[in-house]
């Protein structure tokens, strides 16, 4: 007899496929099974064995479950590429779904659901209907998941055939495994639907809480996660729920524990009794700590979550700081998170213990960890006023060891401590100056120079110290140059003697004439002008009292923190980013046969009613192009963000460049050209940001006017105000000369945020394998970011308006804009997710009130004043983030102008 499955990998002779074909048709069962195994082995190493489709499918009719499963595995992989042949399997599937053996029935629906071929899907409905009501729980639980699969392929079919009701019925099933799967399926369907599909009533709540006790551990997580969306009616109900959920904290499965914690935290919001809350906190602490005994990977997730929890409820783990002390053998990512939490839990009571730990960490081997430990000491000093002195003495001790990177890190934090406690600890400056010549990192250098400038009057030889840096001024990094400039000006203002006067000449000269750094030059010119016109004013400006900095250990703002706490036990709570910043709903990845998905294929990007109004809708989306017969090609745009464009590209090759202004619903206005062919050596790129179904895409059109095929396209975005970045790789086929292709690139937010004043600038780099990298600039329009949930109730609008200070109101006049009809204006605004709230008349003018919201929940309250038909429109907005107002006006101007 044979030995190992691995032998199947080894036959790579020439005639492999014919040989396999022969074996698959053997009259001996064992030989056939062996042959299928060889086929699967070839498949898993990436060989193409699709030509054996018929032969493999022929082996499907067997009572041998082992063999049947292998054939099914093959089918799932290749059915899509052989849709016509896949039909051959349908009969067996349907027959299997009525087999007396429940395993075979379940296997049939499970597999059919995985085959994303329309012709198979059609035949899935009847068996699925039967299996949802099967006597055997194994079949029912498999069928429940299958509904979710079907919904992903064809949502309409699921709704038409009443599968949603069937799924809801399964919530009352007597088998907890079935209940759990039904809940999981419904929760996922709800996630992808805008209509209420799975609403938890108090009735379902009690049923699910009962099922919770009998479920497998994984089922418990499904149920807890679904229930966490439930809002209890009052404190009593919340307490009841918590009581039922608390025993889950004792589970050995960390996922169960964290989901239970999430649920309890959520309900705690409603509980007003401080005793109950205190008691719950007490109950949650030990299981949270126990998570730190798990594998390091789990510890990491637990620590990221605990980081959020202690920001909201610091008392929970106030006495447990010791468990966050770093172990010698913790992986670095665990150590770093522990440090963060130690800083958060540090208090006057435990600071001595904590400092002792930090000091120890600061002499460890791992440089990054050491640096972070030194910074941690500084952050504790800033956080705890009464402990600041002790922190500083620890820092001085560390400086004395003279380990270079420790010294530099210490100087950086001491600068912050000086800012936090001005005029308190300057006595240590002398010690710091001893290490002056060992500094070689820009941040440390800049910090030291800042200290010298700030305290120039107390350092006797401040001018000498600064002068020593001046020699190398042109070679210093920008950060250091800026500090040198400011420090020299400070020195001069404080000690206007000859030495500093000469120095300032040198510096100003270096920073204006000799530099091409605009920031440095601007700052230098400002100082220059100030000093030459009014030295007293210069003093007021440069030596003004600085705002005191504060503790940054709870750095998340309250609304983001609440959002993240609502997402405990999800990825969001690990990244500390709201879900919309990283979730990309690319649901159509492998569906190459888009034509097969007749309308209703809810494949992610079909037009929602709100968008139908969007007159500027650019290229077509799956639904509309698919509805047209194949003749409708050349479709100017990719039907899906990750399509197999190869076919399209070849089809189009005879029709030269695709016309972008193809008539009919399939096209919108042409995209703006960002890289003209003249600049791109024949490659032309047009692009624009668009919003589809709550997701931002970069709609792009590539035209190849060169003489060679272009391929290997990649894209990258520079840091920008909203941190826009590609949510996936750029999916583009090879572009033959004279052809074009378009694509919708899903975008994600808050990846590489450019700090500073908001700007609509988007810098893009595109490369391919044949040409140099192309850089071009785009400007985004703010309305692209307006989220679908920006509608505000009238009452909320009024309250918010009142609650925001007047300084947050910004307005602008647009003298050239004419509002011709209120209706069409509102429609146009609504299409960009600006929602109408109220209207009033003021003399001959109409005043419109609208609301909009950008990610991270920042609202815009909008007031538009204009007279119908008369040029001139005034727009006033109020928002917590008035710095974004210029972008807003930019956006609304282009919207109303078009």
């Amino acid at each position, binding site marked *: 007899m044979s030995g*190992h*499955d*691995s032998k199947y990998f080894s036959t790579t002779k020439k005639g492999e496929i014919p040989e396999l074909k022969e074996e698959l048709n053997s009259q001996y069962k064992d030989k056939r099974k062996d042959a299928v195994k060889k086929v*699967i*082995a070839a498949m*898993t190493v990436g060989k193409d064995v699709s030509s054996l489709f018929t032969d493999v499918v022929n082996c499907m009719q067997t009572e041998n*479950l*082992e063999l049947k499963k292998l054939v099914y595995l093959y089918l799932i992989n290749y059915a899509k590429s052989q849709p016509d042949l896949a039909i051959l399997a349908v009969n067996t599937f349907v027959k299997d779904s009525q087999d007396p053996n429940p*395993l075979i029935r379940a296997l049939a629906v499970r597999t059919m659901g995985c085959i*994303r071929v329309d012709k198979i899907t059609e035949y899935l409905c009847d068996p699925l209907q039967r299996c949802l009501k099967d006597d055997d729980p*194994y079949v029912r639980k498999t069928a429940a*998941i*299958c509904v*979710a699969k079907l919904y992903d392929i064809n949502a309409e079919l699921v709704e038409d055939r009443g599968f949603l009701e069937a799924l809801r019925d399964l919530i009352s099933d007597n088998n907890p495994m079935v209940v759990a*799967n039904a809940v*999981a399926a419904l929760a*996922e369907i709800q996630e992808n639907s805008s209509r209420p599909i799975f609403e938890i009533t108090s009735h379902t709540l009690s049923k699910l809480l009962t099922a919770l006790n009998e479920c*497998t551990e*994984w089922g418990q*997580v499904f149920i807890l*996660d679904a229930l966490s969306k439930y809002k209890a009616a009052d404190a009593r109900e919340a307490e009841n729920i918590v009581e039922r959920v608390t025993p889950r904290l004792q589970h*050995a*499965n960390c*996922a169960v*524990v*964290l*989901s239970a914690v999430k649920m309890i935290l959520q309900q705690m919001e409603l509980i007003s009794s401080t005793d109950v809350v205190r008691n719950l906190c*007490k*109950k949650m602490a*030990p299981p949270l*700590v*126990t998570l730190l*005994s798990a*594998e390091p*990977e789990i510890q990491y*997730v637990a620590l990221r979550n605990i980081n959020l929890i202690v920001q909201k409820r610091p008392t929970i783990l106030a006495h447990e700081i010791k468990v966050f002390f770093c*172990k*010698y*053998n913790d992986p670095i*990512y665990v150590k770093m998170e522990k440090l963060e939490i130690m800083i958060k839990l540090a208090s006057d009571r435990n600071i001595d213990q904590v400092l002792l730990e930090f000091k*120890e960490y600061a*002499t*460890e*081997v791992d440089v990054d960890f050491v640096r*972070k430990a030194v910074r941690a000491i500084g952050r504790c000093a800033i956080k705890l006023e009464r402990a600041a002195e002790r922190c500083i003495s620890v820092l001085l001790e560390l400086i004395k*060891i003279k380990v270079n990177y420790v010294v530099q890190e210490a100087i950086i934090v001491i600068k912050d401590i000086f800012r936090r406690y001005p005029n308190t600890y300057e006595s240590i400056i002398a010690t710091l100056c001893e290490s002056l010549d060992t500094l070689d990192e820009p941040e440390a250098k800049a910090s030291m120079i800042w200290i010298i400038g700030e305290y120039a009057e107390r350092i006797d030889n401040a001018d000498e110290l600064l002068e020593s840096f001046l020699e190398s001024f042109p070679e210093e990094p920008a950060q250091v140059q800026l500090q040198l400039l400011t420090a020299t000006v400070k020195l001069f203002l404080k000690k206007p003697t000859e030495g500093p006067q000469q120095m300032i000449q040198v510096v100003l000269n270096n920073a204006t004439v000799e530099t091409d750094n605009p920031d440095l030059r601007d700052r230098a010119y400002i100082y220059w002008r100030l000093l030459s016109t009014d030295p007293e004013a210069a003093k007021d400006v440069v030596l003004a009292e600085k705002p005191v900095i504060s503790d940054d250990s709870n750095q998340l703002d309250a609304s983001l923190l609440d959002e993240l706490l609502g997402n405990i*036990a*999800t*990825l969001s709570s*690990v*990244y500390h980013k709201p879900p919309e910043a*990283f*979730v990309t709903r690319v*649901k159509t990845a*492998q*569906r190459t046969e888009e034509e097969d998905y007749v309308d209703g294929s809810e494949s992610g990007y079909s037009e929602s009613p709100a968008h139908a109004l969007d007159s500027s809708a650019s290229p077509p989306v799956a639904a509309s192009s698919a509805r047209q017969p194949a003749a409708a090609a050349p479709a100017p745009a990719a039907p899906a963000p990750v399509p197999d464009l190869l076919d399209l590209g070849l089809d189009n090759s005879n029709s030269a460049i695709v016309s972008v202004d193809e008539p009919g619903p399939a096209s919108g206005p042409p995209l703006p050209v960002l890289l003209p062919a003249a600049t791109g050596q024949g490659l032309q790129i047009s692009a624009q940001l668009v919003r589809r179904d709550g997701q931002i895409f970069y709609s792009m059109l590539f035209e190849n006017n060169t003489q060679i095929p272009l391929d290997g396209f990649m894209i990258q975005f520079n840091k920008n105000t909203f941190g826009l970045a590609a*949510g*996936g*790789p750029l999916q583009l086929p090879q572009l033959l000369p004279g052809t074009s292709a378009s694509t919708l690139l899903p975008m*994600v937010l808050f990846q590489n945020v450019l700090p500073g004043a908001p700007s609509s600038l988007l810098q893009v780099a595109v490369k391919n394998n044949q040409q140099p990298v192309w850089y071009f600039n785009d400007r985004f329009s703010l309305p692209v970011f307006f989220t679908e949930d920006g509608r505000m109730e009238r009452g909320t609008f009024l309250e918010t308006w009142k609650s925001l200070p007047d300084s947050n109101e910004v307005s602008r006049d647009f003298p050239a804009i004419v509002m011709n009809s209120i209706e069409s204006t509102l429609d146009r605004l609504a299409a960009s997710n600006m929602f109408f709230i109220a209207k009033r008349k003021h003399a001959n003018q109409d005043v419109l009130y609208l609301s909009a919201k950008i990610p991270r929940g920042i609202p815009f309250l909008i007031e538009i004043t204009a007279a119908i038909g008369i040029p001139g429109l005034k727009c006033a907005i109020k928002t917590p983030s008035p710095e974004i107002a210029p972008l807003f006006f930019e956006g609304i101007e282009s919207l109303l102008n078009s």
Partner: protein
Amino acid sequence: MISQFFVLSQRGDNIVFRDYRGDVQKGSAEIFFRKVKFWKEDDEEEAPPVFNVDGVNYFHVKVVGLLFVATTRTNTSPSLVLELLQRVARVIKDYLGVLNEDSLRKNFVLVYELLDEVIDFGFVQTTSTEVLKSYVFNEPIVVDAGRLPPLGPASLFMQGTKRMPGTAITKSVVANEPGGRKREEIFVDIIEKISVTFSSSGYILTSEIDGTIQMKSYLTGNPEIRLALNDDLSIERGGRSIYEYGGSSGAGAVILDDCNFHESVHLESFDVDRTLSLVPPDGEFPVMNYRITQEFKPPFRINTLIEEAGQLKAEVILKIRAEFLSSITANTIVVQMPLPKYTTRVSFELEPGATGQTTDFKESNRRLEWNLKKIVGGSEHTLRAKLTFSQESHGNITKEAGPVSMTFTIPMYNPSRLQVKYLQIAKKSKTYNPYRWVRYVTQANSYVARI
């Protein structure tokens, strides 16, 4: 829910790859591996277990040098996915007996069959080896475990002790042994990982025990089992602050800070007489995890003395004293100590007549290493190391060297004194008398003495 599951070798080869949803590109394994291998972000050099690349979230755990990875695009529960990856590894190990690249490759058909039952459309269905047995039909092909590196907590037992049947650990739960019948036996392992930090003056700064009662059953017919623990076991959840150490309870009692149980465990009589009853499912699983911060007697005392001998020389004297009974022997002890960066040469001097000890100075990371094959309870061992420096130390040696850390394994010893007093198996017949193995072992987790 997850989109893909795959297992990569240390070199990044795809050993197993299963796509459940088709919404993440096929090249994800390569993208993942490149990212992990060349990780350098936020100043950290080791990739965290969860990260996002271009909209795809990658989760991974390392198990015996293999990377178990899952991907998803949704905002799913990371603890669920990471726990799942661990469990998948455990299920595969239950089935194959040994988990490594070779056994995975030899059994790929079985592994795919398992994966299809464990996960459907990205949703976890079950990770219980017991439940899976009724749906999975491929027979494992057992690989020779002889030369393979040991793995997992159970492998601790393979070292040094004659009483443990070494083969049990790498025996598949489902496969029959040669001869066609399985040996009726059950293993209950009390595994304690201890972390202790000593201050420079020898005080205990922190100490902690992470314990697990691990069970692996090869009993047919799943008879009910009763495990009795110490009568004086108590649980003090959150009631006690760490600032009032060790006061409240009488001497000798075992006090757990917290514990949790496997879902098969019935706790009805636990509160009354500290017995756990369960019908053990097949495969290896933790019956109970517990955590103790109550003070305990550390098994080893570490004494470090540093004497400067002139400007460029110093001597380090390391003393290890084993503070447990002489009937107990610790094995595979490693003592490590980072030395100042400017150390250029180290010469070692062991006690006269020392056997089974080796010493080394790892120049790449300036680390002193002292290996001892075994240490008998009550004994004391000393190492003298003469250091030569390339620059003057300015009296900073103690700040730039250390701390001293130790790893070891001590079979038949557990510092918590938690005991399985008896292990009762419901009898099927008079002649039914399966082998029962109750084993204790203690391992160092983070055992550190500051200097």
